[in-house]
């Protein structure tokens, strides 16, 4: 291609910018680019705009996903410092997830099942925590990403009453974007990498029902070390919508799709409460400017969030534990009844038929990471979060070693699980490997 043959209006330039140009044409076009600064600028602008398009389309509400009924808005929580998350209603990769989660479910061996049940039983004290009178249950300060990373100041923000909405099918969008950029041997634009999406792009095991008449939503809580900061910890909150259909034959797949598309809970809201005797500060991993732009006062969310059978949602909170010296000192007269409790998660939902309001509560006792090995799901979610955080700031010092560590952890998680029905864990490992080679 001669220089004169390539103009800003040449479709080949767009194809090149998107990594789509026929390899045979690439050398000629790159020669043209070397000679023409305006063309180079054009390529950068196309890439930058393409990233904006990807982000916008990833956040687009699903045309078929509008929930039919908007229930009455819930009362604002009386404890002003607690943080409400709206369930990401658009993330119902769903229906089908029931099927896929099932595949993993069947493969878990019996010993693991029993161990998991024991763990779950330990994680759910039967007595509900009594926090209501405590005036200062949580600190809202973000551990990092200050201050421009804070959620925007709106009416809802003053009460910490914000919805957290994931992009529709975050896994697909996040993986597609990474795939495209890395295949073109370049890093994705930092602002396009959203930790919350990447964490939810991977599939995790789902908790077992603890009783025959188990509630429709199961939660799994876990605390462990934050791999990127030894003094901090991560809390993993995994939510799963349950379905009762456990037949794993090919003939019932279609039935299950039908079944799975029915919502099992409507108007799902999640309250996460941290014990100030144990946690000094926290942040939702991925709660930065981009995610903040997608949050809204919870009462103003367009559709009532619903949860579907098989739907899963994972959130990671990074916490800075209270220093041991402070921990033992008497803090105030309003210490929670259960002082060892680290975090309490309350789910409010309405039954799909009738709309009866229900509340579920899950809490997690504070265990120091040394006393407990993190689960494979935890390590994988943490690796996904760290990978996204690194890609957001590839110029930061320590990026190389961080990626090497992520790669090792991901590889270990992929190998040890042996379960990867959708191939995403393996693909994720490949992403990390490619990003590492680009950065080094």
């Amino acid at each position, binding site marked *: 291609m001669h220089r004169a043959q390539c103009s800003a209006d040449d479709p080949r330039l767009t194809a090149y910018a998107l990594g789509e140009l026929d390899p045979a044409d690439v050398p000629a076009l790159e020669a043209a680019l070397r000679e023409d600064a305006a063309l180079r600028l054009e390529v950068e602008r196309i890439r930058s705009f393409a990233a904006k398009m990807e*982000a916008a389309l990833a956040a687009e509400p699903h045309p078929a996903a509008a929930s039919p009924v908007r229930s009455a808005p819930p009362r604002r929580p009386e404890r002003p410092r607690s943080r409400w998350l709206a369930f990401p209603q658009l993330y119902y990769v769903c229906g089908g997830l029931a099927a896929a989660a099932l595949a993993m479910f069947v493969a878990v061996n019996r010993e693991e099942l029993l161990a998991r049940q024991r763990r779950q039983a330990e994680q759910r004290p039967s007595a509900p925590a009594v926090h209501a009178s405590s005036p200062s249950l949580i600190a809202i300060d973000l551990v990092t990403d200050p201050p421009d990373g804070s959620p925007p100041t709106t009416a809802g923000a003053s009460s910490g009453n914000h919805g957290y909405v994931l992009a529709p099918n975050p896994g697909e969008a996040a993986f597609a974007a990474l795939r495209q950029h890395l295949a073109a041997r370049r890093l994705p634009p930092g602002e396009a990498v959203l930790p919350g999406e990447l964490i939810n792009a991977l599939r995790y095991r789902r908790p077992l029902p603890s009783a025959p008449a188990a509630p429709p939503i199961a939660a799994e809580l876990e605390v462990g070390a934050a791999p990127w900061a030894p003094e901090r910890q991560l809390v993993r909150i995994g939510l799963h919508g349950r379905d009762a259909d456990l037949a794993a034959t090919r003939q019932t797949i279609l039935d299950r799709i039908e079944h799975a598309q029915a919502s099992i809970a409507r108007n799902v809201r999640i309250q996460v409460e941290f014990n100030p005797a144990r946690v000094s500060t926290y942040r939702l991993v991925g709660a930065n400017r981009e995610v903040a732009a997608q949050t809204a006062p919870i009462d103003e969310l367009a559709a009532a969030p619903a949860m579907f059978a098989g739907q899963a949602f994972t959130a990671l909170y990074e916490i800075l534990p209270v220093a041991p010296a402070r921990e033992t000192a008497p803090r105030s007269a309003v210490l929670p009844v259960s002082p060892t409790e680290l975090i309490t998660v309350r789910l409010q939902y309405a039954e799909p038929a009738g709309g009866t309001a229900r509340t579920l509560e899950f809490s997690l006792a504070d265990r120091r990471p040394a006393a407990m090995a993190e689960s494979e799901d935890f390590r994988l979610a943490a690796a996904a979060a760290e990978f996204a955080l690194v890609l957001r700031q590839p110029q930061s010092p320590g990026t190389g070693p961080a990626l090497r560590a992520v790669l090792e952890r991901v590889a270990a998680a992929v190998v040890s699980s042996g379960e990867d029905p959708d191939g995403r864990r393996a693909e994720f490992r490949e992403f990390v490997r490619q990003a590492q080679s680009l950065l080094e």
Partner: protein
Amino acid sequence: MFCPSPNRREPASQDATFLEGLIAQQQLPLLRYATRLLHDPERARDVVQDTFAKLLAEPRPAIDGHAVEWLFTVCRHRAFDVLRKENRLKPFADGDAARLASSDPRPGQALEQEEAQTAILALIQGLPPNQQEVVRLRFQHGFSYNEIARITGLSVSNVGFLIHTAVARLRREYAAQQP
């Protein structure tokens, strides 16, 4: 094409796992795609169900390596069958664009990020349907030019031209809204 061969061996559990994973992963993207084509969530659901039914009847070797592309191709054919049967199939024309475009984002104001996304989405919805389809396949579903060509039956250069034209138009219109 979709009749399973009588000699085909029974699916191994591995096979079922693969299919379940594939269905789980692609259900929402297909629903989204079909809904855009049909403008009708209910029919879109039927079309996606039909698509998965065909997937289950298809010999695995026939789809290995390009299963997602295969699903979108079948889904597209099925959607167009429905449109044809209902006489709703109209040639793609620029005339539809104005009707589909949503309200103008406020010009002359600094757009916050959320507003920027809303503005870009509105502009995308204002594209002619043929450009909109390839733009969504590329930037929302992550297909390559080659895959889009096979799904839509267009030539690769035609796909490249449509995407180039669409991106250029979107950039122009977006820039015009900036202060």
